[in-house]
């Protein structure tokens, strides 16, 4: 469950390799291999659709390539990566809303219909209900819930990713849990 916390030394080594022009390309390959699945699932839980997730994931690693040279080593590579990935996912959601001129609820309804589609999701009825309950949460609350409930990420790391205080994140998670409980206990 606590796979999301990598060894910091290893990340520092990767960043150092990346900053050396001779090993830059190989370092990127190693970073991708290390984080692709974790970041993919982080994005997928936000965007639901695989193709959208693929776009956001590619953009995330392209941005890593373009900006890692300026990366300040006082922060963690994986929180920086999650931060980029979260922003990319939210940008795609925003683009969807702008493109279709639909209010928030309609995009969520579109994502909810993908959970009903068995070609996208194969969970049980209660698992499906949980995913749909998550779509009813405000975006940031949903991201907080995912990072805590599924990835067991530390609040301190979540704070770095989302730029929100630990106290606010705990409150957000608390509200999310209560809302989901109510939704799951309803018909």
């Amino acid at each position, binding site marked *: 469950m606590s796979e999301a916390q990598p060894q910091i030394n290893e990340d520092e080594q990767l960043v150092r390799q990346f900053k050396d022009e001779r090993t830059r390309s190989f370092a990127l390959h190693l970073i991708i291999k290390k984080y692709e699945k974790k970041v993919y699932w982080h994005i997928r839980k936000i965007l639901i659709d695989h193709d959208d997730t693929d776009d956001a994931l590619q953009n995330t690693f392209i941005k890593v390539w373009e900006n890692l040279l300026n990366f300040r080593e006082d922060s963690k590579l994986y929180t920086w990566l999650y931060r980029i990935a979260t922003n990319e996912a939210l940008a795609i959601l925003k683009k969807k809303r702008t493109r279709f001129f639909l209010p928030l609820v309609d995009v969520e309804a579109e994502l909810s219909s993908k959970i009903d589609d068995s*070609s996208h*999701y194969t969970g049980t009825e209660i698992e499906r209900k949980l995913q749909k309950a998550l779509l009813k949460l405000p975006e940031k609350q949903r991201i907080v819930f995912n990072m805590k409930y599924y990835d067991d990420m530390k609040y301190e790391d979540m704070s770095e990713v989302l730029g929100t205080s630990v106290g606010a994140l705990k409150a957000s998670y608390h509200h999310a849990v209560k809302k989901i409980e109510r939704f799951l206990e309803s018909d």
Partner: protein
Amino acid sequence: MLYLSNTQMEPNDEHIRKLTGNSNPEENYKVPQGYFDTFSSTVKEKIEARSQPKKAPFYHAFLRPAFSIPVAAVIVITAGYFVFFSSPAPEGAELLASESQDTLEISEEAIEEYLANDIALVGADGGLDEDILVYALDTEEDKVSVETLDSKGRSGVIKDSAAELDAEDIEEYLLEHADETLFENL
């Protein structure tokens, strides 16, 4: 908004875990087979494509000043050449050209014969006698010639003759020849 400090008890999600069987959506969302095997190379290809300078459309070569200025000059000169040489000749130029051709073809004998027949109109010095010309213009028959000549704006002598006509004469003439004038204008 509710804020929880680090020392406060963390929100309890056990109830949800019990309800849902502690499932993970990663097991339930479908991912295309082999997606992660090729993902790294897909990203590298995209990065390489972005780092290469974008290939400009073919017409961009024609927009560079080193090429476009000489080409524009050639186009302008060519267009000017065609406009100048394909424009119709001024009115009467062809007539003058044919007349000059006819003049060249007239033999000296023909000219002498012509002069001999129309000697009455020629003075002793070989030029036109002014008195004869004025007489000719004054005759009724030559009024039409006066009008014709006048309408074409020929010599000053003829214009002076026309200027001697008063308004009544012109009006009378127009009334008499109204039908003809209309017919001609048609």
